[in-house]
């Protein structure tokens, strides 16, 4: 009977080999896939056992911290000041609803996730894993002023330091209390609400830009060398653009006027003709340089960033501006099917302010370890040169005129010269529903702040009367 016993042992060897094989499969071969499985809460739970770093405003005010519960799990608490920055900060309720905002984009630092070598070294030296702290660029006072000025209306304000890309203000109304999301039911309710409080209008909303787009048109016109600020174009109204008549505001008639005058008075027909002369290829190139068509390079979750551009609602996709399917004359004045985010328009203003160099917008200033040592300083990053410094200077001059004597006088500050451009997108003419805009920067000579302000679907609202005063208040606060 010994032969069958040996065969039986051979079978057992095969079976145990299969067990070892399956164990390797689970613990090594497919381990990463299993760790990333959406049902697997273990990685999140492990992170929840680590004391997560705090998040602070620019002046050091505490915005988010972690409190240990009875079950050893840390839970996020947001300070009263954090309510102002609900969208920029996001939330960290990873086990129930997930993470958003900075809590998500800076998760590795906040959770204390180190690279392999550092974590092994920490293990050996018996150091417990602790999260690092995140110091943001966000300005408490200016943010509050922006929220007050928006006054409960739906809208957004974004303010950026032009030379560095530091985001000072990122307001989106209505907001929410991030602490309330601890209850997943509240999250689900807010998610369904009509005015979308969880939605970050600054980075996700696709608004019609109206005449603020003329800044992009002017930059393309001047920088391409085909126009100067003194070039003249006849501004009669209406004119035929792509087979459809285009009118000036109030059907105002202009003779041969300079581009400076055309910007100051926001003459639609002039800018439409300029863009048609430039051609869609040139226009598309400048839009792309300004950052249209791709997610803004900000330290913010990809899922909460939306590109700006010409959007085909039926096909649910962005259309290339030089595809021949786009009415370039109307893109030039911010109509057509343009959809832009307030962040994109703030970037346009900031780029002009920074002498034509577009900077990456940055929410984070630095990352500090629990002992207060700076682990990482987020240095300003150049994104792309959009136009020459000369073009930028000419455009600044033109935009300063808009605030000095044109449609944007309500943004003027006493003693500080402001450059800007208003916009009023007419969304529903019979109901007089408009989207007012203001983009600009100050001080004109050495800009410290660039801004975009917009309000959503307001009856009879105008960029000059409704958006510009908000920009004024916020810039005033940031320049103080």
């Amino acid at each position, binding site marked *: *009977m010994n032969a069958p016993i040996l065969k039986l042992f051979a079978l057992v060897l095969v079976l145990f080999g299969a067990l070892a094989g399956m164990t390797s499969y689970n613990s*090594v071969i497919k381990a990463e896939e299993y760790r990333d499985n959406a049902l697997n809460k273990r990685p999140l*739970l492990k992170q929840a056992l680590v004391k997560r770093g705090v998040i602070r405003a620019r002046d050091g005010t505490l915005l988010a911290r972690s409190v240990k519960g009875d079950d050893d799990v840390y839970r996020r608490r947001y300070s009263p000041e954090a309510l102002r920055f609900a969208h920029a900060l996001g939330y960290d309720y990873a086990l129930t609803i997930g993470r958003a905002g900075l809590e998500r984009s800076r998760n590795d630092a906040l959770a204390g996730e180190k690279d392999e070598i550092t974590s092994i070294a920490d293990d050996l030296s018996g150091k417990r894993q602790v999260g690092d702290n995140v110091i943001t660029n966000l300005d408490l006072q200016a943010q509050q002023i922006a929220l007050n000025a928006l006054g409960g209306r739906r809208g957004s304000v974004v303010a950026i330091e032009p030379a560095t890309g530091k985001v000072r203000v990122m307001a989106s109304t209505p907001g929410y209390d991030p602490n309330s999301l601890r209850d997943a039911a509240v999250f689900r309710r807010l998610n369904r609400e009509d005015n979308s409080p969880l939605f970050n209008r600054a980075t996700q909303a696709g608004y019609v830009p109206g005449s603020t787009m003329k800044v992009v048109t002017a930059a393309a016109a001047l920088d391409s060398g085909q126009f100067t600020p003194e070039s003249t174009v006849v501004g009669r109204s209406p004119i035929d653009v792509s087979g459809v008549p285009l009118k000036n505001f109030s059907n105002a008639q202009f003779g041969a006027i300079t581009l400076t005058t055309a910007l100051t008075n926001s003459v639609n027909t002039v800018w439409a003709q300029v863009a048609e002369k430039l051609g869609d290829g040139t226009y598309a190139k400048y839009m792309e340089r300004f950052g249209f068509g791709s997610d803004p390079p900000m330290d913010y979750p990809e899922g909460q960033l939306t590109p700006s551009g010409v959007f085909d609602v039926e096909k649910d996709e962005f259309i290339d501006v030089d595809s021949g399917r786009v009415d370039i004359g109307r893109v030039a004045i911010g109509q057509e099917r343009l959809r832009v985010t307030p962040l994109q328009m703030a970037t346009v203003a900031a780029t002009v302010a920074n002498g034509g160099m577009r900077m990456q917008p940055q929410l984070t200033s630095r990352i500090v370890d629990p002992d207060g040592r700076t682990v990482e300083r987020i240095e300003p990053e150049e994104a792309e040169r959009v136009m020459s410094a000369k073009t930028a200077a000419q455009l600044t001059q033109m935009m300063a005129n808009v605030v000095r004597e044109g449609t944007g006088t309500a943004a003027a500050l006493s003693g500080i010269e402001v450059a800007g451009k208003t916009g009023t997108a007419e969304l529903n003419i019979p109901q007089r529903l408009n989207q007012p805009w203001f983009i600009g920067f100050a001080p004109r000579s050495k800009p410290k702040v660039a801004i975009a302000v917009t309000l959503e679907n307001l009856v009879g609202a105008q960029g000059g009367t409704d958006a510009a005063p908000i920009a004024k208040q916020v810039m005033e606060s940031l320049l103080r």
Partner: protein
Amino acid sequence: MSARNRELFALIPASLLVTAGFAAVFIQRDDLLSDLSLTYGLIFLALCLAAHLVLRMTLPDADPYLFPLVAVLACFGLVVLYRLDEDFARDQAQWFVVGLIVFTATIVALRHDHRVLERYRYVIAFGGILLLLLPRLGSPVNGAYLSFNMGPISFQPAELAKIAIVIFLASYLRDTRQVLVVGARRFAGITFPPLKHLGPLLAVWGTAMVLLFVIQDLGSSLMFFGGFLALVYVATNRISFVLIGLALFALGARVLYAVRPTIESRVEAWLHPFDRELYEQEIGGSYQIAQSIFTQADGGFFGEGFGQALIRLGDGPPLLPAAHTDFIYAAITAELGLLGAVAVLLVYLLIIERGFKTAMLATDSFSKLLATGLTAVLALQVFVIVGGVTKLIPLTGVTLPFISYGGSSIVANFILLALLLLVSDRARREAVA
């Protein structure tokens, strides 16, 4: 060196292992090494020495490696349980003492000749089946009738019944193996055993089916039936008998699959463990097996380190269900990695190798079949539970021998070990003589 001296030396690594294990848990817990870990190690060493002395006096020629190998598993299990929950470890340590007492009693009672068991084979078989039916009086756990409550003690009779059935089969097949082979008929290219001797074999098949239908315990019945087939194969050297048996078992399992929702949901959970609907299903879903896989995935090659894996939050329930019983292998994989898990499997393989070796050395058919059967059910038990936990086969709850928490499992497996040592002692003595 004599067999017993080799055994004594082999116990040293086991004691070192338990001391080191407890030290690791203490360091992880308190960041300081208490002398308690040493105490645990010493108590364990003393228990093993006592058992060793019993063997030295009663079975001087028995296999020297079986006991130390089992001691390694048992002490490893104790350390793992201690790390999971101190209360479990304390209970288990007590059961360990009970197990050693029963172990000693078995050896002392049968030391002259274990073949007296043959005389009581029908009593033993009947007792085994009765044991299996006892839990039917209780209420099902996870859809299966696995345990029987006697006061505070929850008793899993399947653990003891597997030994009873192996004893019966070894004895029965010793008598009938010749006729089974000689009287076999070929029909349609397959060799069938003679009809008149089929009765008891069908009875075993019937028992496995009863286990399936009444107790609804696929794991135990797989174990029994696998042990049965292994014995039939070794007794007759006819692979066709095994194939017929497998076909019959598959038939029964197929019918059960169709009529019993528990089995069907187990298979569904096995096939689609990460299906969200199955995962969130409250009863009979895939939550447990998915947690088992996720826990193993944390292990990697070297593991997260002893005491380092995420088992529970605060004083809450473990994230991995039944971490101390069915899923203990997943916890081991998480903490000690692939290396640690494979090391545990290797220890089992070594025990199995010694078991089969004992069977091959034995001179009489009953002893041969007994050692083969006991070794085969042990191997199958490991395969069924580790296979289930690693998603190689559908999950059915049996214990991981000598490691999982559970008194009946410890006691039964020590009886199994005692019987193997009894067979081994006689076989090796006769081999030398």
